[in-house]
């Protein structure tokens, strides 16, 4: 079991280095939520926990319901909910 831990630790270290590079890169562009598009917010927020569903996955009515559910489950802001759902409704229907 110890060898697994060592292997996993090394992988984690390598992974962390990659993450640090990515983090520094992502810090470079500063942008407030209100200035972001629905597409941007969809990619940034939905994908953080699960694969982001595409616009054609659900009907406009269902997207309205899902938006509320996700706001409760993940505490996305009202602005994010509105922009993401508008993007998904307008692109997929």
């Amino acid at each position: 079991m110890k060898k697994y831990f060592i292997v996993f630790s090394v992988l984690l270290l390598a992974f962390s280095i990659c993450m640090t590079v990515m983090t520094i890169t992502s810090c470079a562009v500063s942008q407030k939520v209100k200035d972001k598009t629905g597409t941007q917010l969809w990619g940034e927020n939905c994908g953080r926990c699960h694969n982001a569903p595409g616009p054609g996955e659900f009907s406009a009515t269902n997207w309205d319901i899902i938006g509320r559910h996700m706001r409760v489950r993940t505490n996305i802001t009202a602005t994010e909910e509105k922009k993401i759902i508008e993007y998904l409704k307008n692109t997929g229907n």
Partner: protein
Amino acid sequence: MNKIFLPLLLLLSCNLLQAQEKIDNNQSPAAPSTKDGQNKFAIFGNAEMTFLSDKNNVQFGEVNFKPIFLWRISDNLFVEAEPEFETGGGSLDIGLEYANMCLFVNDYLTLHAGRFLPKFGAYRGRMGEGFINRFPTDPVGFGDGGIGAMNEVGMGAQGGFGIGDVKFNYDLYVSNGPILLTDPENAGQFEYEGYVGNNKGKAVGGRVGFLPLTNSSLEIGYSFQNKKKTGDAGSPYENVGLHMQAVDFNYFGHITPMLSDVRLIAEYKYQKVDKATYFDAGGSPFTFDNSPSAYYVTGAIRPVHVHNLFVHNLEIAGRYSQFKRPADAPWGGDDTHQFAVSLDYWLKWNSLVKLTYQDQKDEPKAFYAQVVFGF
């Protein structure tokens, strides 16, 4: 406890009035998105089946069906409910995962009441969901018999807001909370998913999440839960207190040179229970330091930007977890740890097949296969 309840009730009253005003305004025919009598209703959820092979078992088993019912009653009112049908125990087990009524007061505040998924840490009720967890199993210390509640019955306030280009989110709740078990086999453990409380004490808990990066790719959370009275009312254990804390970390990003998306998820939980004297089956008293802790680290990589469809749908994940249990507890003993590696194939954004090898201390090495269909 009144010190907590009174401000919360005052806040609730003020916000209900404000929300009612908003509801009235929404009844204007100009732009109602949901009219009276036109509930927006939908059912989503997932179905799962797990295959297990180790030196003692080769069998299909643990079929779970978890429909989620959602009603958007109006712009401000929302109900979510999930019954759960499970067969892992050898018979059909039906439970109510949550039935949560939500009132959206404004952009920054949502009040809720009912049976809900408390945000104590991020694994249970969120990262542990069938189509989010890359493994068919839970990390040690994070499943049944681990630390922290899966469900709570009570009420709470939650929301999210941005300051500049960073974001915060919060949850604060009051609930019946965990119930202390005192029978010889389980003395010092808790019933975390009770439908009713066992005394007048209430648990107070919450989580604060911080997303420091402008692209929201990183979330760090701190959670707590305290309950001063966990034992049955009138029993010598009534005033045994429980204090829990958790820290969680979730990063999602792209590695362009590898044409891949990566995830790094970690969580640490700690629990401290007040000293109490329990009795074994022979009636002899015993006590122990009841401070278990657990953590897990998961990394996953999916070459989602590769054009080959088969490769594009593959994901590889590894997880290490450890559970430190009280050495002198009847249910405790040595610390345990677990390593798991998984090769997953995504059939759809919320449906996948998981092939997992797992090695856990004092358990036979096991191969799992799990199918999860989201709907």
